Structures are given as C-alpha cells and as structure tokens.
C-alpha cells in the first residue's frame, strides 16, 4: 500500500483515540468540580490540562482555568490541535483522502461524526450540556472502532489503523498516570490505609476503568493495585501491557505479510518485554515517574521507527 495511505490510516486512529481520551478527561474534570472539596476544581483542571500537554497553550489563550473556557478549549477550539473538534476534523480529513481504502461503514462513522460536529458547533452553547458532548464523542469513537473491527479487510491497512490506536492509547495511559504519579507514591501517611479521596477515582474514571478495576482486584484501592492494573494487567483494555501486545501483534503481521522485519518490530518487542518483566515492586523502585517517562520516550522512538519503516516512504 502507498506509504501516504498507511500514514493517513494511522492518523485516523490516533486522532480518534485522542478525541476519546480528551472526552474522558472532560468528563472526569466536570465530575470533580461537582464535588464539595476544599481544594476545589482548580487544581484538578490544572492537572488534567497537564496530562494532555495543553496547559501552556491554554494559559496563553485563556489565563485562569475557568471550567467554561476549559470546555471550549478541549472540545471546540480549532486553535488547539488536540481539541475534540480538531481531532475529529483531522481524522475525517485523513479518512477522506483514503476514502477508497475504507469501507462504507467506516467512512460513515467518520463522516457522521464530522457532520454532527458541524451541527454542534452551530448550536447555542448554553444548550449544550457537557455530558452530552463527552457522551457524543465517546459514542462516535466507539462506533468508528466497531466499524473498523466489524467491516474492514484484515490487510495491512487494518494493521496500520491498529498500530495508531495502540500507540496513542498507550501514550495516553502513561501520560494520565504520570500526571497523577505522586498520588500513587507510597507515602508514609498512606501506609496501611487505602488511597485517599477522589484522586485515584479520577484516574480510574479517566480510563473508564473504575468498575473493571473493582471486579479485577476487589478490596481496597492501593497504589500497587492501580499500577498493576494500568501497566501490567493484560485484561485491562487501556493498560500498557495490552497496548504493547497489540503493537507487537500488528507489527508482527506486517513483518509476515511483507516478508521482512524492521527496526520497528525489534523496538516493539523490547517495549513489550520491558512491561512484562517489570514487577510492580521494580516499577516503584525505579520510581513510577521515571518508569512512565521512559515508556513514553521509548514509545515515541518506536513511533519514529514505524514512520521511517512504513509511513515515510523512504525505506529502500
């Protein structure tokens, strides 16, 4: 397949996954702001903006993190390349370019999201409940994912879409954890007790994993359990283990189809092995922040290898 086509497919997935994550963040943020906490919503919104790497851009444009501005910034703002509107538009534009590589269902999912977005943008803001916006986004992300899984040929294009999904999802998980890493640090005051307050809820909710977590672990919430769930547990749909396994799988299929391995397969294997072999104890020994930083950096070099090997068209 044309490298440019593969690149477009890869970015469809990355943008839609990003939109999904931003919607989850918004949902969590607004939820916390409804709680009668002394700290207020302020610090929480700040940390959520930090998680997406958008805090600086926001501060420049809006100053103080007022909820309404944050909603605008994260949902509608076209100046923010990671806003839901920007992501959905970019995903749809990438889809339009490779229209013939998609099934009608996949294209419909992308195009419907875009057309409805345009309608939302025309609506009076006061009529738009935040929950409606976030639900809407997550629904369309899920519909696209479903259309891809249900209708797309399992060819190399399918692999590039999935590679985009897993890279983006792993990166998002790592960043969300990293922003809250201090919450998970075993500190003296937490010894013997469960983690306090909604901080951990925030995290699990952002991953859409609160209930799944309880089903999987039960009992008290501990730093170890959360780290295990979000990093090592292959049952968790957003864990780093799930994401790296997905990357290995789809890169492996490409290598088989093309009859050659590249640096990307090698890096993916190493990334996955690093997750699998790390015990929770070892992770906390290294320092959670250090561990996650390392993951994010390694995943980024994997993305570069994937680009060089397949998407740039420079491979000889």
């Amino acid at each position, binding site marked *: 397949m044309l*490298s440019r086509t593969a690149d477009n497919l890869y970015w469809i997935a990355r943008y839609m996954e990003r939109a999904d994550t931003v919607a989850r963040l918004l949902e969590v943020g607004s939820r916390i702001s409804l709680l009668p906490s002394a700290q207020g919503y302020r610090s929480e919104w700040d940390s959520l903006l930090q998680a997406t790497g958008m805090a600086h851009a926001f501060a420049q444009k809006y100053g103080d993190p007022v909820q309404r501005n944050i909603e605008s910034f994260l949902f509608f703002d076209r100046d923010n390349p990671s806003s839901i509107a920007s992501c959905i538009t970019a995903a749809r534009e990438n889809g339009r370019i490779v229209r013939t590589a998609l099934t009608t269902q996949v294209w419909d999912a992308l195009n419907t999201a875009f057309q409805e977005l345009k309608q939302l943008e025309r609506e009076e803001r006061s009529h738009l409940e935040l929950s409606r916006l976030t639900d809407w986004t997550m629904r369309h992300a899920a519909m696209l994912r479903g259309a891809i899984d249900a209708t797309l040929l399992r060819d190399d294009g399918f692999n590039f879409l999935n590679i985009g999904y897993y890279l983006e999802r792993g990166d998002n998980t790592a960043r969300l954890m990293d922003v809250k890493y201090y919450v998970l640090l075993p500190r003296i005051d937490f010894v013997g007790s469960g983690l306090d307050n909604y901080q951990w809820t925030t995290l699990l909710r952002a991953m859409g994993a609160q209930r799944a977590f309880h089903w999987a672990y039960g009992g008290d919430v501990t730093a170890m359990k959360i780290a295990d769930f979000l990093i090592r547990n292959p049952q968790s749909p957003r864990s780093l283990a799930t994401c790296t396994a997905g990357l290995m799988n789809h890169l492996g299929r490409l290598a088989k189809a093309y009859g050659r391995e590249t640096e990307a397969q090698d890096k993916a294997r190493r990334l996955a092995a690093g997750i699998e072999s790390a015990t929770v104890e070892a992770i906390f020994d290294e320092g959670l922040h250090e561990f996650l930083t390392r993951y994010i950096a390694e995943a980024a070099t994997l993305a570069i290898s994937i680009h060089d090997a397949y998407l740039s068209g420079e491979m000889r």
Partner: protein
Amino acid sequence: MSQFNEMFQGADVRPPYARLQDWVGQMPQELRSLKQAEAEALFRRIGITFAVYGEGGDPDRLIPFDMFPRVFSGSEWAKLERGIKQRARALNAFLVDVYGRGEIIRAGRIPARLVYQNEAYEKAVAGFVPPKGVYSHIVGVDIVRTGPDDFFVLEDNCRTPSGVSYMLESREIMMRMFPDLFRENRIEPVDTYSDKLRRTLSSVAPAKCKGDPTVVILTPGHFNSASYEHSLLADLMGVELVEGQDLFVDGEYAYMRTTEGPQRVDVIYRRIDDAYLDPLCFRPDSMLGIPGLMDVYRSGGVSICSAPGAGVADDKAVYTYVPDMVRFYLGEEPILQNVPTWQCGKPDDLGHVLDKLPELVVKEVHGSGGYGMLVGPKATKDEIERFRAKLIEDPGNYIAQPTLALSTVPTFVEEGVAPRHVDLRPYCLVGERIELVPGGLTRVALKEGSLVVNSSQGGGVKDTWVLAE
C-alpha cells in the same frame, strides 16, 4: 430559431424515446419529487460533488442531476462513434506529426505559428514518440446536435477531460431508482469504461516494462474539484491514486513510495497539468511534480497519459483545422463537422465578428468552463460593447461561432417536464486500439432558453442512453 427536440417531432414521439413517454406520463408529481430527493441523497452520499473555482460558497455543491434520460438509437450512435474515433485518430496523428517532422505545417495546411508558438506546445518532447504513437489517450469530444442527422463538434479535449464519473454514477443511480426502465429498454452498459480505461493505459506501457504494467492515477490532491473522479477511477480500476509526493525517480525508472519499499510505476494517468509534472523541466516552483520525471519519460522508463504536450491539439484555434487533419492524415472525409469558426486573429474574420457580435458566441482561445465567453443573443448591449473592446484589444485571443440552435431534451422542471438544451461529451479511449463506451456525459442547461451547459454556470447532468439495436 427552430430547435430540434430530441423526443418530439410535432406531436409524434421519436422512436428512441417511445417508452419514456409512458414512463413520464405515469409518474405522479409526488413520486417524482421523492425520486429526485432520493437521487440527490445518493449523489451526496457517494460524495460526488463539484467545487467551482473562485465562486466561494459551498465547496461540496452537487451538480444538479436530471432524471429524464437522453437517448440515442443504435444507428445514431454508430455514426457518432465512427466520427469520434476518426477524430481521435486524426488528433493523435497530428500530435505525432507536430512533435516530429511537422509535415502538415510544411504542406501549408496549418500555420506554423498556431502550433509552434502555442503555449501548449512542449518543446521538451519534440522528437519523442510515445508508446504506440499515442499522445492523447482519453479524448473527450464535445458535441452538439441541431437536427436529426446534424451533429457538430464544439471542441476537443485531448489532455485530461473530466466528467466521466458523472457518466458512471448517473447510470448507477438511474439503474438503482428505475430498474424497470432498464428492463423495458435495451440500454448499452457504460460500466465497462473502467476496464477499457485500464486496458488502454496498460497497452501504452513503455517497452522496458516486462509483465503486467503498474498503472497509477496522479492527482493534484484531495482539495482538487475533480478529486472524487480521480478516486472513483482509481478504485474501479484497482490502481493506486497517487500525489506527486508519492512518486520519485531513481535511476532510469519512476517509483511509488509504499509500505513495502519502492514499487516501480510504468504508466501514469495524470490529472495534473504539464506545467506541474516535473520542476526540473517545467515550473521550477511546482511542489506537485516529480523531479526528474520527464527525463525518465523521454528515455522510455515510464509512460505519461496524456503525453505532455498533447494540449496543442485541443487548442480552440487549432480546432478549426481538425477537419483538415482528418483529410491530411487519414485521407478520409470528416464524419463529424466543426461548428463554423471565425479566427478573430484574422483581420477579415474579425471584421465579420465585430459586425455580427450580437448573433455570435465568442470564446477565449485558451479558456474553459464557459468563463470569459460572450453569448451574443443572450447578452445585454452593455456586455456586448464591453466584450467588443476586449476583442479589439487582443483579437488573437478569441474565436467566434454562430449561435447554434442546440437540440433539447425533455427535462424535469418546477412546472413539470420542459425542453432544455443539451450537449454531449463521449470519452474516446486510444491505446493499442480505439474504443468508445456507448454513452457519455450529457450536460443540460437547466435555465429556460439557456445555452450554457457548464456545471459552473447552472448546468446539470443527465444519464445518456444508447439503445441496443
């Protein structure tokens, strides 16, 4: 001015349209509105829209589709087909000639100036004969009708005639909405076009290509107004739709960048202008092109369709000489006539044109899409006078033709069914052999009395039927 109605002669229905009489008679108004809405929804759903340059507004504008088909009998078509193929052969012979020895110029049949000083003449390909001696692989011939047996060629399109997607999609939609019509009438299929196009393109692969040639469509990108057509054709032919950045030159060949590494490309069906093909040969500032492509082309490493320089044959000033080309190269009499044309660059012709301006259609030699033209009988006094000034200032830039009484075909309008003027663009494929799909693009001027069928100026499209004999 008496106008030929293709369906009715007086009260009688002409035979090709016989079965449509009942069809339209039995269709209640509500059903018609329903069907029209359905057709529009289908067009929008498949994404076939048309962006008009410089008009602003909705970039996803639909070209209006009229459900009333335009019908040719088998024998009418047979004559058209012979005429179009003859013309396509002559045009290609002309191109081979003017990039070679220029016999037709030496013989004094066409002025050297019109060819060699033509902007579309590419010095860079002089002395080069493309595979199978074909420069123009898809010839779109614009034809108008004025009577039962009177067809005139309005212009030729030798570069990259567009619109074939409308021919294909109009048929798809008609078959889907009115399957009974297709059972009752024996209508020749047009969906063989993509196979024929692919065969045509493959047949002109360079001699160096062994085995099944790799064909690609080169598009200026997804912002182009014809990008739907490019991707449709790529999809139907099962070939890659590439942009300039996807191709590169290495050694003696051109390659596309794929996820499996470079893949050699043998035939490029390009939908971009000559000027943007190769910044090393043409416009150095072009970002669309492929550096070094022309060197590979000239040395036989890749075929480009249409060949760079093919445009010199469809120039409106050269057009006048096409009947002469038919006689000169083929030794035949032209089957299809030209519309009588005055070259405003000639003083005698200019005098005549200036005298008769209110009766004539005046066009820019290099213009397209109905822009920059004057339709005398429809123009205001003021418009005519303004055009007169332009004409006097740069006469060589214009040609003039009589206002033809274009034929009409019944068309669905607000009040029911009414005659509207039409033209026709069939697409002739030239490769190892010459082929013509029975059908084409019928454009219809939806405004009452209007003669301008261009989609950019309120024209619509119709399905075009050729009945099996």
